[in-house]
């Protein structure tokens, strides 16, 4: 009898986590972002600032200091901490002159695909009252890669169905920085041969 209860509880707790598996490596051909885990760890969520953590991670990926320093006091502006909503994002992005798309509604799916296809990450609603960073997308298998700022050292992998549940749980809201994507990590190859 106690064993049955424990099994049931474990199963129910596991069902709360939509992640299929964890991608441990820092690089993957389907990742749009390429930050080392140590750098992602700067953007762990210390105090319920998940929206700013997610945007900040995109900022450091696209080399936009005004966005990358959102969590801290800097010459780009005072730190932005705590809970957020689309209007607040508009306010601090305009104040810091961060060029970004603040997208709500049904079109978020297309925007997320657009971001990944063009080498950008996105700060997205993911989970109840939570924001995470969309890290990549494999269009062939419709697999989504997400970095949660509560566990930024790992990349979570979601099937399309699981990802839809994740995104809808927070309300359809996405923020994408309007800057060029980062270059791929440069490597020397004798292409002229």
């Amino acid at each position: 009898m106690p064993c049955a209860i424990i099994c049931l509880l474990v199963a129910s707790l596991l069902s709360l986590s939509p992640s299929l598996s964890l991608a441990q490596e820092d690089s993957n051909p389907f990742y749009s972002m390429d930050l080392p885990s140590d750098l992602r760890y700067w953007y762990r969520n210390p105090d319920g600032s998940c929206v700013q953590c997610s945007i900040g991670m995109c900022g450091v990926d696209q080399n936009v200091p005004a966005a990358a320093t959102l969590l801290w006091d800097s010459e780009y502006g005072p730190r932005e901490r705590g809970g957020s909503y689309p209007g607040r994002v508009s306010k601090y992005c305009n104040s810091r002159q961060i060029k970004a798309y603040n997208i709500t509604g049904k079109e978020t799916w297309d925007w997320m695909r657009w971001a990944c296809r063009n080498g950008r990450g996105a700060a997205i609603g993911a989970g109840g009252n939570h924001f995470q960073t969309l890290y990549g997308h494999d269009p062939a298998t419709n697999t989504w890669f997400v970095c949660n700022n509560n566990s930024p050292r790992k990349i979570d992998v979601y099937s399309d169905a699981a990802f839809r549940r994740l995104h809808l749980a927070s309300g359809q809201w996405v923020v994408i920085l309007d800057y060029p994507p980062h270059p791929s990590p440069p490597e020397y190859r004798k292409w002229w041969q």
Partner: protein
Amino acid sequence: MSRKILIVLIMFAGLAPAIAVFGQQPNSRNVAPSAKAEILRRGNFVEHLGGDMRFADAEAIASAAVADVMGQPADDNHKFFITLITQRGCAPCARLKADFSSDKHLQALVNTTDHKQSWAHFNLYDAADKSQSFRWSKVQIKGYPTILIQPPRNGKYGDSKIVINQLTGYDGNGEKLFNAIAGSIRAYVAKQAQKQAIESGAAVGTPTNRYGVGTPTNRHSNQYCQAEVDYDRTPSDYLAPIGVDPPWSPRPKNEPPVTPSPLLPNPSPVGPDAFPFPLDPDAKPDAKPDVAPNDAIPQYAEVVVIQDAEAKDEDAGELVKFAKRLRHKRSGMKFRVLDWKEASKIYPISRDELPVAVVTSDGKVESKILGRLLDVLNPPAANPEQPSGQGLETFPVSSLVALLSGGGVGAAIPIVIWGLLYLRSKRRAAGQQVIAPQIDEAQFGLLVNAVVSTVLSKIPALQKPAETPPKAS
């Protein structure tokens, strides 16, 4: 059996709300509860943020807003990448950045104000920006400015990681640089086309005939800033990313003006002669990105609270508050929290001193403030009915116990300081002369602490051997 199942189901039904509540974020944090309602109110809405609207009139703002509520921008994964890496205080770097915005040849490649209008993706990096240094782990930077040219992301012209060309320096001739960039891209595209044609079995002429380019012999000898990459150090362990300073030195918002220097017509070439690389393509740099911290004490003033992450010490929290107060008193001072395992590689501390605040400047330790002294340095708020000053209630009993149980000279320091403060407060209360009457008790305590610590550190016999930190699992 069915009764057992029923009981399990009832228990689970009772626990489910608790699990749901446990898994939920607090309402005042993360995505605010009002966000969902706002998302619904906004509906299908795209807002384009961050444009500089300060000088725009109302009509322009309105039209921009309407224009922005359109679909996604066009795909831009077909664009080549031109990446400029510069160094602060480097005149050729400043000149090149300015020329990318103004030179008609370079503007044919890059639009620095509107990336959508740019032929290539243009990214500008600061060599001292530690948050971006990992990107260059597989290339060798020989000087500044450095320009890297890479293929588009969509894979049409091969792997986007390939460095088509790396150019170092700038002599102020935008047309020459344009020719170098465009020439190498043409050569690369020609080679790719040739490869693809061979793979598909088609007969092709030479790349020169098809694309009008010669052999890739572009060289860009010019003025440059020698590569002395002096990266800002990065804190080793971000135990407290909730600090007020970014954990790295971001690129300055407005770079200070660079002192003009004459552009040398024929400086020494940075690299070897052969195009395309002044480097060894077979070089295998470190696979791990270099985001590891330095192991040196920084030059800037800093107060570092060092604690043992494995021990829950109440003094550590008080010490953090104390260090923050200290930071606010000294302008420009930075603050961070470190775990002892990391800090012991940098600072001369032993584990029995933890928690401790270390004040550093100019690469040296100025003073150490032990957490266990805080009770002595910060006596409880004075009772208005009692005279202010150091009382018996602040006597460091724990230090006395440690001393009696053979705790060494270190345990006696708090008692000595308490004694001095006690005598001082008694003398002050009696209206007698005291040492350094212009400073208060807390500052006097700090002074005594610094003096005693310095004196003890000069006596080798009193030094305990530094404890070796345990190896990370």
